[in-house]
């Protein structure tokens, strides 16, 4: 068991470690400003939908094109293009996590995660809001 299996163990661990290092090109959480400096790199943005500008989505013409403006907590702004269907309640979301790449004049978004105000029942404010609506 001893020497041989230890050699094999170390061997496998090294192979997997190498694979891991080689394979995983990790992304980062960025602000819109810092993402603009990393044009072409896959990043995660945490921002808000800018409701003062129109959201463009015409599913009867093209269900796979959504464009809107996002603004983050530091005031960075960008146009976002998401070539997929519009997540329901995008307008109502408090925060969106967008995964994608910054291009020269817009953010090419691959995936959107919404944080909606009332999805989280354990949030006290939401419970208060809901009970006041009764």
């Amino acid at each position, binding site marked *: *068991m*001893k020497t*041989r*299996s230890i050699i*094999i*163990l170390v061997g*496998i661990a090294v192979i*997997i470690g190498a*694979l*891991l290092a080689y*394979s*995983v*090109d*990790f*992304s*980062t*959480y*960025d602000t819109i400003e*810092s993402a603009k400096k990393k044009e072409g790199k*896959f*990043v*995660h943005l945490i921002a808000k939908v800018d409701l003062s500008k129109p959201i463009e989505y*015409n*599913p*009867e*013409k*093209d*269900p*796979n*094109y959504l464009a809107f403006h996002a603004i983050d907590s530091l005031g960075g702004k960008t146009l976002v*293009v998401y*070539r*997929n*269907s*519009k997540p*329901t*309640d995008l307008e*109502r979301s408090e925060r969106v*996590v967008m*995964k994608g790449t910054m*291009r020269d004049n*817009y953010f*090419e978004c*691959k995936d959107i*995660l919404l*944080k909606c105000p*009332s*999805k*989280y*029942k*354990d*949030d*006290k404010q*939401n*419970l*208060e809001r*809901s*009970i*006041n609506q*009764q």
Partner: protein
Amino acid sequence: MKFVGEHLLPGQIGHLFVIVAFIASLISSISYFSAVYSIDETSRLQWKKIARFSFFTQIAAVIIVFSIIYYICANHFYEYMYAYKHASKELEPKFLLACIWEGQEGSFLLWTICNSILGAIFIFRGKEWESPVMGVVTLSQFFLFMMVLGIYFFGVRIGSSPFALTRNEISAPIFSQPNYLSFISDGMGLNVLLRNYWMVVHPPVLFLGFASTTIPFAFAISGMLTRKYGDWIPKALPWILFSACALGTGIMMGGKWAYESLSFGGYWAWDPVENSSLVPWLIMVAGLHTLLIYKATGRSLRATYFFLLLAFCFVLYSTFLTRTGILGDTSVHAFTEAGTAISVMIKSFLFTFLLGGMFLFAKHYKKIPAIHTEEPTQTREFWMFIGSLVIFLAAIFIISITSIPVYNRIPGIKDLIIKIHGGALAMPEDPEFVYNKVMVLVAIVIGLLTAITQYFKFKSTPKGFFIKKIATPTLISALITICLAFIYPLEYNKFGLGFLGAIYLAFFSTIYAFVANLWYIFSVQKANWKKAGGSIAHAGFALMLIGMIISSSNKKVISSSLVNGITFNMGAKDPNGRNADDPQENLTLIRQVPTKMADYEVTYTNDSAGNENGRKYYHLWFEKKDKQRNKIKEKFMLQPDVYLMKDNNMSSNPDTRNYLTRDIFTYVSFALKEQQDKDTAAFRESIINIGDTIFYSNGYLILNSILKNPNNGKYHFTSNDVALSADLTVVGKDSIKYAAMPALEVDNDHLHHLDDTIYAKNLYVRFNGISEDQKIKIGVKESDRLIDFVTVKTYVFPYINLVWLGIVIMCIGFIVSMIHRAKMSRMLSALIFAVICLGIGYMFLLANN
């Protein structure tokens, strides 16, 4: 203030029994450990008596607590926070259970119930191991009850009680009135995604799996405390088999739920919540194999200790990941952001058991017997050990990637990450591929080892035996793989030929594992089913992997433009240009207009309301035609739905057509909301005779006839009614004809217009009445936008049933082994086998229909 209409008694009783259970589990734990360390027999028995008594007391308390929570939720006592948060009046009784384990407190209670059941069985079968093992089990019970305690200790609240009152938990103006309850009309209700059959059965099985990992852990601890390092192994084996079975089934039931009610299109997404329950299972399976090695050869006992201790610690780590909100944005599963108090308690639970276990392991490491010679490569134990190591390393790989959000929170490491990467670490562009590309290699190795290892014998294998026995299954599997590669090739080209090659290797190796294990049952074990548990479980596991490889490689999005040609782009502008290989995966279906989707023609025919308010089903009619004979080969209706929940969130629930060999899975990716801006177009009236024509901008209408009290496909009037309908034919520019049948009805001196809509032409037709000169008044309205449509995404999953069949077979294999190893009486064995098999068969096949 005195409040009106509150039911405070059940909550007070419930809270009292939570405290009883908490204290009883502590007493039980202390007494069990005292029994372990007492020197004389009389005090040992006395301690054991106290321990048992308090253990059964806490079982009774837990049952009472759980019944009261059920009572409160079933009766909609919204003065309790738990009922307000999780229950609602429209919930069916079976979902009342699901709503209890939706919440943090209810799921901890479910865990304590599972611990209680296993503990009670253990008391009857544990014999000399009862005291030390139950000491650890009751200690974990103590921590679990602490989570739901809800009492203040020096101003700090310990645990959150399921019996907390709504008015104490949140502040709102209505609570200043004594009759505040009359203002709370209904609770928030169960999240609609969880209103699924699998959410009723999956949590109990999964928590039974979690709870069952406590016992192998406790055995390992007991082995060290009593210094009988290897004696517990045969006793622990059936418990480990049970644990692997329950946890594995629980995880895959969760997969079945995700497949049926989530719209990501699949049963596994390498989500942190899924990963963190898979990891303990993998480590438990690794520990199971090293334990078998020890039992047969006396080797690898230390590894067994290590794996069994870690399996439970990773269950606790999983609890920490999923319940403290540390995963934040990384998990799709909406888990709750818990308060810091509960987070501290979960951490203390984790660190008590992890550090305690590891400290003992380090202290006793040298004393745990080990054989210091090398085993030859021609033995079963050698290859089994390699397999266990690979499984263990795979688990470590998965958990180290899953823990990325944790690294971002650890001071020191956090700064280092920001220094190197310039921001908090996040998953790469294709998070699933990170796992898949390593796991495909793991599958190759594990598949091969599962196939060949049983053909070696423990200690030494006679020359020629291995080659002679393995040759046939090897040949058969190679043939099957080659045939399949031609008849039914795998088509996963997204990551190039290299990865496809790896998938093919994994395909061969899992087929090999399946065939070789079946072969082993018949050729070596001579179909002695009692002893074949291991091979059955291996074959089931292999079958599951085969199903996963086929269904994920050949899954197709048939609503995609890649399948249908880029036909559906009605002049939409896309200012930023579209990447040619960026598929447009969503397809818009206009009401009543058949649309091509791969081989199908899909029509959104109509919609209907569900049981719950705000739920809308879209009826999609699928037809497949035989082109030559123009006959319909296949037709079915799918009804995915969209649910606007009370909190105004929309939720989209898929619908699936199941065939033996494939599933057609569809969900609504975009739906119109009810409140549309008003249509500005108006009806234009024409007064005509029968046979005359009305023109509109895109064609014309012909009035065919007028029917009195029609009784046909559209209307069902009788001779007592006063109704007229007009039969019109609409002819568009494309000369396609549609029938329109608006009607008029007089009912209690009121005139009703029953308009007809030609959705495909955006046309409304109204029967306006009959003019004085006996002419017919027909109103026509042309809407300037689409009247009704829905956007969907549709997948075809081939052979997904192999995945479910595989898990069921694996589960049966574990049970066969467990019964064999537990050395129970024939009657009891047969009974347990029958009950579990019927239960699994019922849950997977029947209960859901």
